């Protein structure tokens, strides 16, 4: 024992080589997972992850850590369910405790139409092998004692959907776990290395100009969330994305009071309690485009109103911290995991407000797409050209507020 000194480094941080077989741009959860599965599942170990700041310093470190797979349409349900299955073995897989806690996720209904949508979605989930049940208000009042299930509430709760296998995970640990495991397989993880240009020749990617010099590579996977449009422009591409601030909040730590995740599309907020005791809260995006990693006060007020509608008991809890991330939203609330018109250039983006839950599955299918130059059947429907063909996957209902 050395009193928490002399810890070994979790990854090497080498200087970049002159050439790699593939480069992942973006060292968040999705990028690191992509690199890990490229090395592990596809044997591509001469690869690098380039991160402009520090690992997990973007949306990976800014989200509210909710995991679930109860999406309506087949394509989305299969993709997110693949991810939940990977979550279930992830701590063992990475030999790193990602603190995946299947504490369940409730999605409340406040109107008859909410309940019809919930029943439809629950049935669709079950047909797709995703665990999901409808829970009555009476049952909710037993399971979540502080939830205001009174019929006198301004927006009375009529029931909920419940996914028992959903829950939360430790966001930083996910980035660090994937980074350490990828590094152990030979992946070079390079921080403070911003990409400034994507070099091309006759419609093919040839390399990247970076803060640490030119790096030659035939394959580039861009996984940069809110900055995806900026990277796309470097390659002369346009994406169906808009970047918005999404704020999140934690309260001062309090004793255990909420042992699950509760979200409501109608009053528009969601809440869980971390193992440290702080209430972890989120709601909707700021409506204007923004890259500023901060939002407006009016959204904070709106969020707190929603939380107090569900949990009046929290009215005197003080908020401790508030921050924003930049989310890249797609018109159909589903991601882009896709080849592009530039050969060797791939994008994994558009996860909008709910990408954290998909971290391992996103990396898994993106690695397949890069390694084989064609999508896996799980992400074939998530190509950019669905916005040309019109084959959208409208998940605004299941994406809801939440995540």
């Amino acid at each position, binding site marked *: 024992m050395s009193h928490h000194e002399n810890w070994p480094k979790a990854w090497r941080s080498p200087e970049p080589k002159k050439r790699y077989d593939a480069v992942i741009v973006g060292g968040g959860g999705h990028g690191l997972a992509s690199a890990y599965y490229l090395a592990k599942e596809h044997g591509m170990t001469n690869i690098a992850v380039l991160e402009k700041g520090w690992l997990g310093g973007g949306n990976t470190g800014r989200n509210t850590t909710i995991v679930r797979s109860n999406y309506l349409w087949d394509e989305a349900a299969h993709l997110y369910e693949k991810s939940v299955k990977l979550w279930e073995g992830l701590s063992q897989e990475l030999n790193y405790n990602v603190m995946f806690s299947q504490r369940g996720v409730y999605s409340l209904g406040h109107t008859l139409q909410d309940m019809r949508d919930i029943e439809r979605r629950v049935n669709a989930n079950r047909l797709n092998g995703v665990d999901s049940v409808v829970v009555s208000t009476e049952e909710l009042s037993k399971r979540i004692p502080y939830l205001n299930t009174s019929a006198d509430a301004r927006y009375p709760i009529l029931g909920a959907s419940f996914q028992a296998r959903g829950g939360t995970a430790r966001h930083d640990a996910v980035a660090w776990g994937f980074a350490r495991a990828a590094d152990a397989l030979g992946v070079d993880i390079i921080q403070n290395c911003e990409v400034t240009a994507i070099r091309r020749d006759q419609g093919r990617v040839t390399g990247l100009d970076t803060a640490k010099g030119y790096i030659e590579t035939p394959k580039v996977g861009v996984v940069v969330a809110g900055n995806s449009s900026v990277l796309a422009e470097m390659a002369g591409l346009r*994406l*169906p994305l808009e*970047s918005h601030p999404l704020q999140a909040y934690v309260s001062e730590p309090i004793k255990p009071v909420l042992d699950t995740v509760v979200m409501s599309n109608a009053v528009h907020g969601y809440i869980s309690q971390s193992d440290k005791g702080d209430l972890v809260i989120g709601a909707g995006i700021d409506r204007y*485009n923004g890259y500023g990693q901060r939002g407006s006060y*009016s959204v904070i007020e709106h969020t707190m109103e929603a939380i107090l509608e569900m949990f009046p008991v929290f009215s005197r809890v003080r908020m401790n911290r508030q921050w924003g991330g930049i989310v890249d939203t797609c018109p159909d609330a589903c991601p882009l995991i896709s080849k592009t018109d530039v050969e060797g250039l791939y994008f994994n983006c558009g996860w909008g407000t709910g990408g954290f839950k998909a971290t391992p599955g996103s990396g898994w299918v993106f690695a397949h797409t890069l390694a084989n130059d064609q999508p896996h059947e799980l992400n074939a429907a998530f190509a950019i050209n669905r916005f*040309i063909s019109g084959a959208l996957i409208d998940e605004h209902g299941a994406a809801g507020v939440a995540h």
Partner: protein
Amino acid sequence: MLLINCPYCGYRDESEFHYEGEAHIVRPSDPDALSDAEWGDYLFFRTNPKGWHKELWLHSAGCRQYFNAERNTVTYKFKSTYKIGESAPSGEAS
């Protein structure tokens, strides 16, 4: 809270306004003549710049007029607001 200068009402709180996305997107005059890619671009693809952006705003809880604005998406600072049909005061191409 942003303070937004409505060209009709003057400065008002952000909460009176609704953001309507990228400005100066012109509906194609003959949609049937477009390819799927051109129509898809009109409907779904956006410039999404990091920096100065031309945007459509609606003074939804005020005069209910649409207007355009030049705003920086990193600092969130407004450079100008101007009425529909006018060009941006900065004179840059839209």
